[in-house]
């Protein structure tokens, strides 16, 4: 069994045992339909042949999807390079950030110490009343010896920002169900009875051009365009907070190779830290940005900005629909407590099988 079972496989199993419609319900639905069909016999509707749905099989989409499928054959030859890259100012700035990343050494975690990866995350939460922004912060304590016990402190979910009465109402409605926070503890980082934590960094090429081709291939067919998919891949990888310096520099190099990437804000502030924001405007009203401290080459965080009214109802232009800020420090100890599956859940099935179930029932 794949111990890193992916989230879609899991979702497909949620409520997969719902009851089939009863014979009575099926018959009632059929009867209602035939009832509606009966009087319509007298006036058959006119067909509208060849009604084309405009807009969504545009050449752009076809070209992008086709390119992603056809050209990403390897890491050496691929989408990277021949279509240009980031705009010159962004490329220049990213090259300097990469140089700084290489010279800034990774934090050294001594025996018995931990690398504390602190994540502040904000995301848009939408319900029937409105949209608000919610916080979920966490600190992961990674031991010097990865075989030892890791600790993940997940703070309670809180409201970060509301946008008027409807938004406040939604936040209040959601409050009782907000995640209460929990401490998870697992050897090898196998949280929630999963497999050992492995970010897969070893398999990523360090040459920026090859890395970018790898990314295009990995994300082929996903997201609104290959280039935005690549920016997101880079943002998602960086925000783990544990990317080694050499790979971080390569990721900046890869970002410099993505057409359309530009400096969107020279002084972007995220969680109290200021850096340069690099982003790509896809034309869909949202912009994914990666914010880097140019002095150290460290990634401050990432955010997705709303550029157009109505993209996320209730969230004004210029606000973000989500952001993550990451800091890492070396600490001498990790908090006590915590269990493999978190509060109220116990591991079941094989060790590392990714299975936890509600406890105390």
């Amino acid at each position, binding site marked *: 069994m794949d111990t*890193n*079972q*992916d*989230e*879609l496989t899991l*979702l497909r*199993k*949620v*409520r997969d*045992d719902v*009851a089939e*419609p*009863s014979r009575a319900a099926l018959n*009632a*639905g059929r009867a*209602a*339909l*035939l009832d*509606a*069909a009966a009087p*319509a016999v007298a006036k*058959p*509707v006119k*067909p*509208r042949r*060849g*009604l084309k*749905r405009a*807009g*969504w099989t*545009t050449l752009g*989409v076809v070209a992008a999807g*086709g390119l992603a*499928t056809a050209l990403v054959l390897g890491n050496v030859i691929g989408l990277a390079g021949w279509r240009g890259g980031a705009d010159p100012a962004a490329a220049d700035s990213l090259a300097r950030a990469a140089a700084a990343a290489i010279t800034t050494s990774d934090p050294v975690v001594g025996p018995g110490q931990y690398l504390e990866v602190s994540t502040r995350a904000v995301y*848009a*939460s*939408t*319900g*029937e009343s409105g949209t608000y922004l919610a916080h979920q912060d966490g600190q*992961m304590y990674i031991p010097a010896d990865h075989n030892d016990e890791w600790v*993940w402190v997940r703070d309670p979910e809180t409201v970060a920002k509301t946008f008027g009465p409807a938004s406040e109402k939604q936040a209040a409605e959601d409050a009782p*169900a907000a995640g209460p926070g929990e401490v998870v503890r697992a050897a090898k980082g196998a949280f*929630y009875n999963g497999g050992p*934590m492995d*970010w897969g960094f070893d*398999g990523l090429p360090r040459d920026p051009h090859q890395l970018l081709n790898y990314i295009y291939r*990995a*994300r082929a*067919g*996903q997201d*609104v365009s290959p280039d935005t*998919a690549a920016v*997101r891949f880079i943002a998602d990888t960086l925000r*783990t907070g544990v990317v080694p310096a050499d790979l971080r520099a390569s990721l900046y190099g890869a970002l410099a190779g993505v057409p359309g990437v530009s400096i969107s804000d020279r002084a972007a502030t995220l969680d109290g830290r200021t850096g340069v924001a690099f982003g790509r405007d896809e034309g869909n009203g949202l912009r994914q940005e990666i914010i880097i401290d140019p002095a150290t080459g460290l990634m401050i965080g990432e955010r997705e900005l709303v550029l157009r009214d109505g993209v996320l109802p209730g969230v004004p232009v210029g606000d973000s629909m989500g952001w993550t800020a990451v800091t890492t420090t070396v600490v001498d100890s990790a908090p006590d407590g915590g269990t493999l599956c978190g509060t109220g859940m116990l591991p079941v*099935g094989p060790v590392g099988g*990714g*299975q*936890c179930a*509600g406890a105390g*029932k």
Partner: protein
Amino acid sequence: MSTDSEIIRRSRDTPAAFAELYDRHAAIIHRYASRRIGEAADDIMSETFLVAFERRAAFDENVMDARPWLYAIATTLLKKHRRQEARAWRGLVAGGAAEQADADQDAVNGHDDRLDAAIGIRRLATAIRRMPARDRDALLLYAWGDLDYEGVARALDVPVGTVRSRLNRARRQLRQESGRNAPAQEVEHGHESGRTDTAAQGA
């Protein structure tokens, strides 16, 4: 066997023929509605086909498969049941729902399939409950409606690229909940297989 579009075309002159479409797809619409909101699924199933019948003239005959169209109607009807759906997700988050109980029971009995469903169901439900409705629609049509990207795009009447973007954002939110949020992992474990490739070619 007739394609869906052939049945719909026939129903323009012979309205009762539309019942064939019902016999073919009523169960999947019911199943989808039932997974999202529970009890009112019978009504959603019935209403979906009544609305579809009334709008059959607008059905694009070039499309063989009527499922995305039917899911589109069902999705619109489901919007009236947002409160009910939110309650269902909250139930899962709180761990008090029947599903959780079933999963626990099966865990005791050793049914592997249901065991899988017990894995952090609460974490998944948390992420799904709080994501924007349109991302949730795209995600659930893809995961539960078993549509490909193109099908989801038809069902939501948005470009395929937009579907990709919404699914990407939704999946990212789900991943973050599990702590396994490095994209390189997916590549390594080959999670992006058949369906994505097919969808890319279809785009």
